[in-house]
């Protein structure tokens, strides 16, 4: 058992996009704020802060998760991926990101990081995901610009391209 007192900051250490990171947080600090304000990884956006909008969606231990509904101190020892971890190398987009660009699947970009994280997690776990399945996963995100059509098109194309890549590998 470990008890962290409310009025002090505590060391939090986890794997973020493949590297070990650490910072200090009070128990009440949300993971979304820890990522942005302590670790200065501002790719994860913060919208509603009660789990509805999906903007802050990240991957925790392989599962989609709202960063605003988790505490930084809960993450000690976890494996986390954020949108900064999607590009294979700096300057090159992932298959999914490239499809988003091709299909104009974003306008203001506020919801994009969260949507990319959900879709990336889905396509890793279920390479055969069809449009119905993608729609189901997208229902956990709000986008006020696109009307979702372009996002859907991008995701369907990315799924197809990823399947092709796997076949040729």
């Amino acid at each position, binding site marked *: *058992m*470990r*008890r*962290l*007192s*409310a*009025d002090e900051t505590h060391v939090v250490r986890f794997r973020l996009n493949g590297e070990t990171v650490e910072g200090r947080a*009070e*128990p*009440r600090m*949300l993971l979304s*704020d820890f990522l942005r304000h302590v670790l200065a990884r501002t790719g994860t956006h913060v919208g509603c*802060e*009660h*789990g509805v909008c*999906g903007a802050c*969606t990240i991957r*925790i231990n392989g*599962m*989609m*998760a*709202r960063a*605003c*509904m*988790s*505490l930084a*101190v*809960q993450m*000690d020892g976890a494996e986390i991926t954020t949108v900064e971890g999607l590009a294979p190398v700096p300057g090159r987009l992932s298959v999914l990101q490239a499809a988003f660009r091709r299909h104009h699947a974003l306008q203001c970009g506020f919801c994009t990081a969260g949507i990319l994280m*959900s879709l990336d997690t889905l396509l890793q776990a279920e390479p055969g995901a069809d449009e119905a399945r993608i729609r*189901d*996963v997208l*229902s*956990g995100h709000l986008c006020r610009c696109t009307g979702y059509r372009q996002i859907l098109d991008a995701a369907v194309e990315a799924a197809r391209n990823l399947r092709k890549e796997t076949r040729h590998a």
Partner: protein
Amino acid sequence: MKPAPFDYVRVDTLAEAADVLAQSGDNARVLAGGQSLMAMMNMRLAQPTVVIDIMHAQGPRQPEIVRNRLRISAMVRQEALCTHARLAQEVPLLAQAVPWIGHIQTRMRGTVCGSVAHADPSAELPLVLVALGGQVHLKRGRKNRAVPARDFFLGMMLTDKGDDELIEAVDVPLTPPGTGTAFREVGRRKGDFAIVSCAAVVRGATTRLAVGGVNDTPVVADWKDLTPDNVAEALNTFAWSLDARDDLHATARYRRDLVRRLGEITIREARECAD
């Protein structure tokens, strides 16, 4: 939209969690998947001074069969039900209801027991638990007790669980062959809170319908010898017996109408499953 200060306790066993709860009393809350509690804390509707994180505790992460019942321990996330391969054979109603819970992003964090503890009147899991004759296993210090789901939900977000108790597990009986079940829900958007949700269980000549989203807790109606000829009348009587109210999302009249129409569809689907 940030939680008020609290001490954070990460426990290694549920027994430890029960001890900390016993010492802290009504100022402590158990944090599992956090998909209800964290939102409440962000909005300061909940301001615990001690938060007990049980998600690193030892124990099952998957549902398991214990003495002819499917037992779901406190650390089992909702998504673990989706990936439990035999769920559709073991407890088909659970398999039918789970996709309606929130979104995949919240199911991957939220736990089954956490949803039961939160006891939202429109939540799917309390409804299924009541419809199937489930039980809630509670732990206070070293003492354990089991409460039938029907007696567990007392009101809107109000349960029989004491402030110093935690839910160790819930269980439901395995569904015997020849039983038909169905689940239906109407909400404004996919993943939104249900305006009305219906769970039906048909076994031989008996029909059960459990309704969520109308009263403060799930409501159950049981009928013998319900036929296509008398189902409409039975559902009408049932709809009027409920405490349907007007709110921002729907009128009382619309809710009663949903009970009648959705109820009939759900019962029909359950009967078709049973045949």
